[in-house]
């Protein structure tokens, strides 16, 4: 039973043993933790130090304004794949009759591929 649990996951083309990896991870964690413990843990709480760095600009009263909105994330990626995303957005109309149209379209495709028509 014990050996069964230890067995390496063999995909036929590669191996993966989470337990060995996890064990090594733990060992390295200990080393790094000790190493990190040698560093200076302190800082001055509640001083200017812990304020957010805004290149000297004043921080907003309402902290929510500091939070970058989800829709603004990955701008560069969305920008360079705009054409795909806009096409896809147009597909998702949210109307049942368009969905059924897609369904009929797929039946037609299957019929073509399977040689019915």
């Amino acid at each position: 039973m014990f050996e069964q649990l230890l067995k390496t996951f063999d995909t036929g083309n590669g191996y993966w043993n989470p337990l060995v990896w996890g064990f090594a991870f733990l060992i390295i964690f200990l080393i790094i933790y000790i190493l990190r413990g040698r560093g200076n843990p302190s800082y001055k709480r509640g001083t200017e130090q812990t304020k957010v760095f805004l290149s000297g600009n004043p921080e907003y009263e309402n902290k929510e304004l500091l939070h970058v909105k989800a829709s603004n994330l990955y701008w560069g990626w969305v920008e360079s794949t705009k054409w795909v995303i806009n096409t896809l957005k147009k597909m998702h109309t949210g109307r049942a009759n368009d969905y059924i149209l897609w369904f009929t379209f797929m039946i037609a495709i299957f019929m073509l591929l399977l040689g019915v028509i």
Partner: protein
Amino acid sequence: MDIGTVSITILTVIFGAIGVTLFGIIIGLLYKGIDRKIAAHMQGRVGPPIRQPFLDVIKLFVKENIVPDNAIPWVFHLAPIIGLIASITILLYLPIGGFPAVLDGIITSKGDLILLLYLLIIPSLALVTGGFSSGSPYAIVGAQREMATMIAYEFPLAIIIVTIAWRLSLMQNVSHVFTLSTITSIPLWNILGPLGFIGMILLLLTLIIVTPAELSKIPFDAPEAETEIAGGLLVEYSGRNLAMFYLTDAVKTVAMGSIIIALFFPYNLSPILSMNGYPAYIIDFLFYLLKLFLVILFSVTLIRVGVARLKIDQIVYTYWVPLTLLALIGLICIMWDQTIMTQFGIPSVVEILGLT
């Protein structure tokens, strides 16, 4: 499985882990110093001494470890540690010089290319999470750029990895083509024909351009971009947490270099010089260090000095269009190579050159 083998296994893992940690950190920092020195010379500066990165780390350990108000403390602290550990575990699966990988053969566990691909993600993921958790707009902008860069370069990287494994899978009597030990034992250069050779060179080129993005170096350092977003995702980090990220970067450089070596230059000197025993290990290790130096010189230092930073959407474009095409051409070359070789009876490049 008796007690003896279990304890030997456990001891191997423990000592291997300790050894690899020391190796990764020391060599990583050393190469960082060399990199900085060479870059400085190329820009007509004197540059810092080679031991400067060590001094940097020591200095960071002495500095205060500030946790900003807006940060989520536990994520903020945990991210750098996880990143460093994950990047060290990559080294556990890589053969270093003449030594086999530490985890090779521990309960039949072996290094696997897909696993490495995913383990390489974890340090970047830790960096991103750390940046996001620090609650500063600069860091957030940097972190989301890092993530977008990651999506971008993963495409060509996946092509390289899958292509190499696919070509090996065509060979008779080769199993487990994704394991590093298989890949290093059969260098593709030895079996490919002329067309495949060209394909392989294209793949190598792609991987060399992927490397700076993997390590967030110029021209793909938009996530950190000191001049633009003030250090990006590291802006709120200081003291020992920053030191952790500094070390992660160093270790990751070694890991990435070792992956390139394992995939493309797995040759050792000792069989050619017909040496064995300790001298062989030493000469292979030195040769490995030389290879690592060359790889880092080409893929990090030269590119970094020679090119200016790209905008983030340009990065995505660069990877998804020109580089992916380059890698795909490489893939097609290698796919057609086998057929052309058998069809026209072309020998492999090694045979043409008479190196067998």
